[in-house]
């Protein structure tokens, strides 16, 4: 995480509450509730978060949820499959827009 992103910034995340404490409080409570054990286990949620981290390409999230997945007992095989899910959705999302291309091409073609 060299350059624009700095690993040491991640623990400073709560500083986002300094100028908008009420919003931060709401976010924190909601965030904790989201990741609590529920219909999905905390480990499944961590794997989803890891996949989404890669989809949105957030270095902080990748770092945090790699650690969290390991702490929830996931292994590299499972974590790699989660990343592939993210990659497949990103790739698939591009590819499925090929239909827009085909539609547009059809429209202007004889």
């Amino acid at each position, binding site marked *: 995480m060299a350059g624009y992103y700095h690993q040491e910034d991640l623990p400073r995340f709560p500083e986002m509450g300094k100028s908008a404490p009420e919003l931060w409080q709401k976010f924190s409570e909601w965030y904790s509730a989201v990741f609590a054990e529920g219909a999905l286990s905390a480990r499944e949620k961590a794997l989803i978060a890891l996949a989404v981290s890669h989809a949105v390409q957030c270095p902080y999230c990748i770092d945090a949820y790699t650690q969290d997945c390991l*702490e929830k*007992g996931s292994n590299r095989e499972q974590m790699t499959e989660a990343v592939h899910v993210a990659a497949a959705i990103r790739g698939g999302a591009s590819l499925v827009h090929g239909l827009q291309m085909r539609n547009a091409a059809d429209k202007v073609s004889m």
Partner: protein
Amino acid sequence: MSLASIQHPLAASVAQLRVLNQPVPSWEPFEEALARSSLYPLTATGITVFQINVGKLCNQTCRHCHVDAGPDRRESMGHETAELCMRALAATDIPIVDITGGAPELNPNFRWLVKESRRLGRHVMDRCNLSVLLLPSQADLAEFLARHEVEVVASLPYYQAEETDRQRGEGVFQKSIEALRLLNRLGYGQPESKLRLNLVYNPVGAYLPPSQPAIEADFRRELKQRYGIVFHSLYVITNMPISRFLEFLLRTGNYERYMTRLVNAYNPAAAAGAMCRYTLSVGWDGTLYDCDFNQMLELPVGYRAPAHIRDFHLAGLNTRRIVTGQHCYGCTAGNGSSCGGTTAR
């Protein structure tokens, strides 16, 4: 390679303590955390586990080992000290004898200690690395353990070879599976069996262990499906920032982050249930400690408690004040960590 064999500076406990005692403003001194939880000074609540570390000799050289054990280590409990241990035990009604090392089975007095403890009617636990059961010199070890109804507490950091071998050495996972099958064949780990087989999980890196029930369910399912192996319970243990694991943390730049993780995860319930409160740890030379970790940091029992097995008297140790330090965050983070797994469930 053990740190001792390569004469690494961290082989010396003073060097480890120097690192651990370096003040970091955001890391509350452990004693202050205890005080906040109304647990200062931490005291023993009576001894129910008599833990004997018979020495540092081991057939493996695991990368996280807090003992810095290995095939090169020669520290080993002699018969005279073993006899003192049994004499002390006989004078008490401490119900559990927990024998550890190194690979404790390689100590020439191991079997004598087992037999004597059983003769005294005590429950005996063997902290076993599994691969030792396959050594030609230990061909009858598994049967010996079964015959004396010794509980086997076996290290297996993961149910896959990649993770296990990364921590414990190439090929160790396969040997562990073979040894577990041998134990299962003898009746160990079977649902109704009195031959107890418990596994120990610890993280293969600088992170906290998962929830014990969750990872136990994974181990049970995967070991059964993949290898047909059964066991009773799985204990999760946090890696302690001492000895080889401390060296790993420092070498890989993970030390500050890991310690911050431990300090921030301090759990008063885990501190209240810490194993040092009900354990007495005896070193290979007879020195008494509050736990095996203090033993490796050469921090013997303090505050005027008898410090050697030859001076053992229960009244002086039962409610002793416990020697603590920053490393104690390892046992009090999250759900807690002990030789019997989590302490705050």
